[in-house]
């Protein structure tokens, strides 16, 4: 990874159209990489729920803004995991020897439509589930209900994660929400769907991100680079009701994320992620999900995700900081978010994360999730080529 660009994330960037947002992120990533557009051999366009933009086939619409004319182009779409899947696809294309340098581009403009949950209702089964008005917030509240019943989750744990992520975002100039939030603010915020409150959730953000991925050989000649040590991804079955629990898994601790992480760890030779990773940029748009993911990323023992909250291990300054950027609880341009996690992890191991840099970070994990806990990607990034 030799280049990363991200727009500032905001509720509405009224000064630019959607394709102009892309141009902004791509220009920044290209400048960061030192490559000209003519040195990009292929483009992966990571564009998730286009219902937000209200433009079907956004690849047609956005192609000029990422310089796609004349280049091989693929569009990737795995819901919220889209950005992670895009980075994975670009990495695989380079690994396969098809191209030397690939540009990955993510866009989301969530502000164009008035009600995000109305959009999200349409990702549920129109035959059985839409009539019950499931959406992302209610779906994740259902996850939280199991965490509270079986995994020791309390309102205090939820509040701690929110406070940590808001505090981290104050150090990240690109983050959407910059506000001081304390435990009382979180606990006093409006209940949306028990047990989830407003400050347990993410904002809707406009924004774009872009990453340049190239061969290790070319990266070695570059002033700063992060190296993809391993990548994993996995999907799970569609219906929530078919994966509530069995002898080996629980809907509250997504097994597909464990499958994705296990593959990434195996590919990168990581045996003990808690000790070997220096920093994690997890795609967790709700505070309860971050705690569930501690376990499915194998950072916490089975059923003990809350341990990392109680020991404050995942705070900036803890032994395994999670989302030093503030993560997607403070900026969530959905389809681009996975790419932001990937770019932030790359910056961490390059030592270029600025005010939210984790001192001495050499190995980082970046994840993405999509669907309702259905699609996952996991990437391990390292400071060294070997």
């Amino acid at each position, binding site marked *: 990874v030799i280049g990363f660009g991200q727009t500032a994330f905001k509720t509405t960037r009224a000064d630019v159209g959607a394709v102009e947002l892309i141009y902004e992120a791509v220009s920044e990533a290209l400048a960061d990489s030192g490559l000209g557009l003519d040195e990009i051999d292929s483009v992966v366009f990571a564009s998730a729920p286009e219902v937000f933009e209200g433009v079907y086939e956004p690849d047609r619409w956005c192609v000029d803004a990422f310089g796609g004319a004349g280049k091989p182009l693929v569009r990737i779409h795995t819901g919220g995991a889209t950005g992670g899947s895009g980075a994975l696809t670009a990495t695989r294309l380079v690994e396969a020897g098809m191209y030397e340098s690939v540009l990955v581009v993510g866009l989301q403009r969530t502000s164009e439509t*008035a009600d995000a949950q109305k959009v999200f209702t349409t990702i549920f089964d129109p035959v059985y589930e839409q009539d*019950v008005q499931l959406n992302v917030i209610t779906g994740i509240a259902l996850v939280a209900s199991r965490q509270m019943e*079986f995994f020791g989750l309390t309102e205090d744990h939820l509040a701690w994660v929110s406070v940590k992520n808001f505090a981290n975002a104050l150090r990240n100039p690109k983050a959407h929400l910059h506000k001081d939030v304390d435990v009382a603010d979180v606990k006093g915020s409006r209940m949306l769907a028990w047990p989830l409150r407003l400050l347990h959730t993410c904002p809707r953000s406009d924004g774009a991100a872009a990453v340049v991925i190239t061969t290790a050989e070319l990266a070695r000649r570059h002033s700063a680079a992060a190296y993809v040590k391993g990548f994993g991804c996995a999907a799970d079955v569609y219906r929530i009701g078919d994966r509530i629990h069995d002898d080996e898994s629980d809907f509250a601790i997504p097994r597909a994320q464990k499958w994705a992480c296990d593959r990434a760890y195996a590919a990168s030779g990581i045996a003990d992620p808690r000790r070997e990773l220096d920093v994690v940029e997890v795609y967790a748009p709700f505070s309860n999900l971050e705690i569930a993911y501690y376990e499915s990323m194998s950072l916490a023992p089975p059923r003990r995700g809350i341990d990392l909250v109680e020991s404050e291990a995942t705070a900036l300054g803890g032994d395994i900081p999670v989302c030093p950027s503030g993560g997607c609880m403070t900026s969530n341009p959905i389809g681009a978010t996975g790419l932001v996690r990937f770019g932030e992890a790359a910056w961490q191991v390059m030592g270029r994360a600025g005010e939210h840099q984790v001192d001495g970070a050499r190995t980082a994990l970046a994840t993405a999730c999509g669907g309702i806990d259905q699609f996952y990607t996991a990437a391990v990034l390292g400071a060294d080529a070997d």
Partner: protein
Amino acid sequence: MTTTTPVRIPGEWHIPYSYTIGESASAFFGALKDGRILGCRCASCGRVAVPPKNFCEFCFTRVDQLVEVGCEGAIEAVTVVTAPFAGSPDVPYAVAYVQLDGATSAIANYVRGVPLDDLEALPPSLRIGTRVRAVFGPNRAGRITDFWFEPA
């Protein structure tokens, strides 16, 4: 330098659909009109999925055995929605996934008959593990909302 006021142009997607649901789902909705709930049993793994479909994604085999499951079951996941979303019923309302007796999967529906006065805490009668029963409305349209759950 002049200031430009950003303009927004209104737009709307309104595209009607007619979803073809197949024989298994059609049988399910037909049975709902009779006050019965159908699942399908996989001959290979024995899972009983509710609602039914004509294959098992775990075994990747064809499934053609429809079975009737119980109208009672236990709550597996639950939420009380307190913020109004577009198209949703009046808040507060409760939604749960329930594993019906004889089924190995859970199905989502509204839970009624539970007072939702305190929006800060989950009513004890909605706790995971609580027994509930499917209650069928008088006018059944062959939709999932032909029934809902109430405490058993």
